[in-house]
């Protein structure tokens, strides 16, 4: 399943993932493959993405550049202040604000 994580300033993650956990405003939930279509607002909290093989691009905080990787099963966690998630046909769009400490995993 594919995901794009966008902030108002840049794209911070895009690529193939196994699962994503988000702090929905009615409780945290996890999105796996073949999830029903959903649109939800997100509260302050942590998003964690588990990557899959097939390549993904992410914004590396230390170097401040977009990096590519193929490593599967990697868990990336980042704190957000709020946002929205949309899932449709295994395409996840995550719109978030207030990424504080970036991606670590």
């Amino acid at each position, binding site marked *: 399943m594919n995901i794009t994580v*966008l902030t*108002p300033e840049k794209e911070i993650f895009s690529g193939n993932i196994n699962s994503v956990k988000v702090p929905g405003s*009615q409780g945290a939930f996890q999105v796996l493959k073949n999830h029903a*279509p959903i649109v*939800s*607002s997100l509260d302050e909290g942590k998003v964690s993405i588990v990557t899959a093989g097939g390549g993904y691009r992410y914004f590396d905080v230390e170097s401040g550049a977009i990096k590519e990787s193929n490593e599967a099963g990697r868990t990336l966690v980042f704190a957000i202040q709020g946002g*929205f998630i949309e899932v*449709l046909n295994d395409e996840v769009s995550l*719109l978030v*604000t207030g990424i504080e400490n970036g991606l670590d995993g």
Partner: protein
Amino acid sequence: MAANLKEVRERIRSVQNTQQITKAMKMVSAAKLRRAQDAILSMRPYAEKLNGMLRNILSNLEGDAETVFGQERELKNACLVVMTSDRGLCGAFNTNVCKAAVRTIETKFADVYADGNLTILCIGKRGYDYFRKRYTGARIDNSHVNLFHGLSYENIAKVAGSLLDAFEKQEFDAVDIAYGKFKNAATQYTITEQFLPVAKIEREEGDAMLADYIFEPGKVELLQYLVPTILKTQFQKCLLDTHASEHGARMTAMDKATENANELLRELRISYNKARQEAITNEILEIVGGAAALEQG
């Protein structure tokens, strides 16, 4: 003639110095413009996705979407946001933005201004300087005048959020933004746009229901989250546009100045050469005259 020669030489040198500065400023602006354009481009996917979500919800919604930000109220208190640059030397850019703002004050907000209920929120020093002196009948808000120093979404969202709050609390019944809309490096439009209340959000034809979505917390509640976020990105777009326009305008202005300096230098060189030739001719005449006098004697 020697004094004239020296004068011209000094002028040439001074023009050359100025040209060097304008050339450097043009180059700096070109680099900054590219970065400003990149910023506009990189926020676009986010804004588009947000709008996509909005349309998605609307297509699933029965009836019209109504939020507090669409409320049309009687115009008693208003706010005009004026986005200008911090520095000058960018042609008529700041003047044009201020003119666009003044047009709005004199037409749409004329009554509000006459009643002393107009707030002018200045972002960018130039606009602040302009309105501080001329429009003493309005409240001039300079608390965000330095926003261009830290143009992060966080800072922008704070300002936009406070405007939204004020509208919600009925402190303002309308908010307009005067800014420089960026088209390309050579063209910028300076216009005033209505920010609040937002135009009625209408379902577009052909907005087919894409899928049977689950909406959390609910369609109407989601709209209450979504609309302010969209408005904040709109505000951000205005700021980024102004920023890019400023650098575009400065680049064009400095390019023209450099060209002008070239023209000036060409003319100065001609007059310098003329003066030099004249001095030489005079000297030769003197020598020839002297020699002729000697021969005769």
